[in-house]
């Protein structure tokens, strides 16, 4: 085999999450009453459009989760040696985007570097000049033909993309009839088509300080954001669910202890608690370099640890919510009916209480997602976020903001991080709203009886 699959900790957890979600989806599919709110979600065109956008992000993130290491040509003692660099299916797919690195900054669609360099011209004189980029627009013999070339490539890409989009829409026509969805699908496909076609020969979003393609960085950041937004819930969910429900159902000293724990935790301002925990985690990781065989593994462990810390510090809100709801539920007559049969507490919790708080959990989780994506950027800025070597929105912003003082302004890194984050978080927020509207029993519904 010329490559070795690598499963990082975060990958494993993502797979776990996917299998949990699939199991859940399979379970829900067979139950009409559980499916009902999802059908309400599917009726909202805002939800469908935002889900479509989110799924593009998800696909990028998932491709970026399939990691491997390439075998090196030489071998030692008959054993294959693998490159220390951990790549992903996504890296493979975008190929040149990753490898086409320039020397330093260059603006979007630029043909020249941002900074002047000393070069020898044809006459042998040393001149200060903006050198041509090694890859960006290298195919152009005539520099003045750039705009026409960009336009042509964009149009071709859009055409191809929208064709694919129309085909997809045609395939989905039976399931989803919202025109808004079709329009978004076609527009999105056209946009992606244009970007793909352009990015092969240009740096569509420019390059950063060390010459890396900003589009590549932005796309790689997606996985980091998604991981933070989703894996954290793997920690918060069990903690909040078990402690919240237990506190509400058993009351008495169980309730006192759990309330004490979450009051202590929530009384520390969360940024400070996270900062303190991350600093300590850093010390642990730095003093044990022998735990990790690649730098990717180390950065990944830091990411997982960050999720763990975020989870440990943010379960209290949901826990309090679930405790309150359980307190209400335990007085419901159907629970008393079960108690009158002598049904055990565990069974009451699993059959009566948990299914009836699931909507709260779901709403809380989708609402938290966008907050966590935003938190990543802030924490990375503060210096307690992901590993500096890991590509994320936070590290992108952090690296770029110092260059705002330059003339002319290096705006493209920030602008790309801004746009990508905004689209991701906005889509997540809109989807979360639709989910909340569909699941919250307090909201009025016009369907059925009044």
């Amino acid at each position, binding site marked *: 085999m010329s490559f070795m699959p690598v499963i990082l900790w975060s990958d494993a957890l993502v797979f776990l999450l996917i299998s949990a979600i699939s199991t859940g989806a399979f379970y829900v599919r067979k139950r009409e009453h559980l499916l009902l709110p999802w059908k309400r979600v599917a009726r909202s065109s805002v939800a469908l459009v935002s889900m479509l956008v989110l799924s593009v992000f998800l696909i990028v993130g998932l491709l970026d989760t399939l990691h491997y290491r390439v075998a090196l040509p030489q071998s030692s003692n008959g054993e294959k040696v693998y490159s220390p660099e951990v790549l992903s299916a996504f890296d493979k797919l975008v190929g040149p985007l990753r490898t086409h690195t320039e020397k330093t900054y260059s603006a979007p669609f630029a043909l020249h570097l941002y900074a002047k360099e000393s070069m020898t011209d044809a006459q042998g004189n040393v001149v200060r000049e903006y050198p041509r980029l090694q890859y960006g627009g290298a195919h152009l013999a005539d520099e003045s033909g750039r705009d026409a070339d960009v336009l042509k490539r964009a149009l071709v890409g859009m055409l191809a993309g929208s064709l694919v989009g129309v085909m997809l829409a045609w395939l989905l026509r039976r399931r989803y009839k919202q025109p808004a969805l079709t329009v978004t699908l076609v527009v999105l496909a056209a946009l992606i088509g244009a970007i793909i076609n352009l990015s092969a020969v240009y740096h569509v979003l420019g390059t950063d300080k060390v010459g890396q393609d900003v589009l590549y960085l932005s796309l790689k950041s997606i996985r980091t954001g998604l991981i933070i937004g989703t894996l954290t819930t793997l920690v918060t969910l069990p903690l909040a669910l078990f402690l919240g429900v237990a506190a509400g159902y058993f009351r008495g000293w169980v309730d006192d202890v759990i309330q004490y724990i979450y009051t202590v935790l929530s009384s520390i301002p969360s940024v400070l608690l996270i900062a303190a925990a991350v600093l300590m985690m850093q010390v642990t990781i730095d003093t044990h370099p022998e735990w990790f065989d690649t730098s990717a593994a180390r950065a990944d462990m830091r990411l997982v640890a960050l999720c763990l810390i975020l989870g440990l510090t943010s379960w209290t809100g949901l826990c309090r919510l679930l405790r309150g709801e359980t307190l209400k539920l335990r007085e419901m007559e159907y629970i008393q009916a079960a108690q009158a*049969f002598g049904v055990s507490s565990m069974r009451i919790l699993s*059959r009566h209480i948990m*299914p009836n708080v699931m909507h709260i959990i779901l709403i809380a989780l989708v609402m938290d997602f966008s907050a966590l994506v935003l938190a990543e950027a802030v924490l990375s800025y503060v210096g307690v976020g992901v590993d500096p070597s890991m590509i994320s929105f936070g590290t992108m912003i952090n690296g770029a903001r110092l260059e705002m003082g330059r003339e002319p302004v290096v705006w493209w890194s920030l602008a790309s991080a801004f746009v990508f984050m905004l689209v991701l978080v906005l889509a997540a927020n809109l989807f979360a709203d639709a989910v909340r509207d569909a699941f919250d029993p307090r909201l009025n519904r016009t369907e059925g009886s009044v």
Partner: protein
Amino acid sequence: MTLLKVDGLVTRLRGGAAIVDDISFQISAGETFALLGESGCGKSMTALSLLRLLPDGVENSSGTMVLGETALHALAEREMQEVRGGRMAMIFQEPGLSLNPVMTVGEQIAEVLSLHKNLKGEAATARSIELLTQVGISDAVRRVNEYPFQLSGGIKQRVMIAMSLAGGPKLLIADEPTTALDVTIQAQVLQLLRETQQQSGMAMLLITHDLGVVAENAHRVGVMYAGQIVEQATREKLFSKPLHPYTQKLFSALPDARRSGHPLAAIPGSVPMLGSISTGCRFAPRCDRAWDMCHEKTPEWHVVEDCGVRCHLYQDAGYQILEADIPYMHSPDKKLNLETRILSPLLQVDDLRVHFPIRKGLLQRVVGQVKAVDGVSLAIAQGRTLALVGESGCGKTTLGKALLRLVQATSGSARFADRELIGASEERASMQMVFQDPFASLNPKMRVAEILEEGMSALKIGSDSAARQALLDELLDKVGLERDSKWRYPHEFSGGQRQRIAIARALAVSPQLLICDEPTSALDVSVQAQILNLLKSLQEELGLSYLFITHNLAVVEYLAHEVCVMYLGRIVERGTTQEVMRSPKHPYTQALLSAVPRIDGAGREYVRLEGELPSPANPPQGCHFAPRCQNVMPVCVKIFPEMNAVETRSHTVCCHLYPTDFIPDLD
């Protein structure tokens, strides 16, 4: 003189179904017009349409409403604000929710006074106190500075009335003004409304589902069904000769003693869902006299001897059917099988107490006890029904839960078939409960089959799943539900059907005794009759015993063999239904019975009950009832009376008026 004239009023969901569909009526000055109907028939929406206070998403789409000379439907919002609270005022169903919790009573009344009477400051306060006094609040000077949470339900509703009177309205709309109140408080409030009307000469639109309330208060009545008025008549006409089959059915669905040997005439099915209304008469699917025409053609409004009715029976072809018809009411033959045998008890409760500690202060020390159940003794025999009657807060539900060990009894004993229950953890199958709220008593996330099986599996009944499935089918047959319904979820059923499921769940473990906690109080009259019939037939078929907890005395008369009247945690009177209902001895029982409005409109001796139920945390000295009792004697405030038999051995009373056992010696 016509004060309000409503013509062709239609109120609908924006772009959707009509909730109120072409309603016309008139109210004269000084008159009470009652809108009578079951839940969801559009009565409240009619009232809110008049005030133009419809909730978001609901709108008036056509029709005219004229108050005096003012066309309400054409007024600008600003002018409408002058009408609201001024010439037209409204009181609502839930006094606890209808007052602003963070404003004092005085502030809330003063708001109306400043808007409509231009009274401010001192003058407004003085007038507020005057109004509060007028509605029978004794210490108005203190109450005016209190917040709603400091007042009891009855006082809150009085405050609401005072507030609505503050603007000097010509028309008062009362939307179920007493539904949330206990029967003795209801009597007080209704009387207050009648007196106020007499003094001020205002007109009243009374919205209610209770035939008794209509019988005692209304001059004219409109019966609503599924958004329409199906019959309109004077009270006398309506009660002596109801025309519409729906009205007739409503009367015959009412439980009372005369019918106790017979099944009630329940109306099958339930009120149609909004938007499901198609062509034809809306009542046709539930009407036993409907013929083809009723399903095809919507009936017109017919005027029959100055009453109006919307029914094909009163049209040319219909009269033939009508003439060949049977009378609408059962002949009241007295077939009472409530003999006074004393049987060996199945359940024997002795001196049961349930106390809840009150904690207060810095260290949360126990400073007192809420004596929810305070020394109750009772007995139920096999196949009999014992009704436990009392106002809310008297501890009757707590008693039921203590018997099921859902709350822990403080002391006392409860023996079921000679086995002690208190403190035991086994023996759960023999006694089960049917709860009040059919919507809260079924887990919405479980199928009917899972709900029914839960008890069986917890108590290990039914050897394997095939046996259990067979049992399930049998149960569903028993309670009158389709066998297919076991694969469905609770939200697919109506209130009455849900209550059937709840009964089936309890029966799944073959109990001998069912504790029914107000099982019909959340249901409409027509559906209540179905459930009462079911309970009665199950008793005959299975020999079940019932402990029937209720505040509805009509149901007691219909269903119970024996009655216990509970007041503040203790039983004050006990006897057979006949004894307690026909010749109540305890002043409280007498007051309770006299407070129930009667549909026959027969003049009754009204025992007015002052004040409200005291707190069980701090019960009055001596006889708990003494502070409200009309026959109070010096001894009453000192010593709690003994339980003594009166007239017969089975009829016992806890009152100083009956000091010794009155019974003639039978031995």
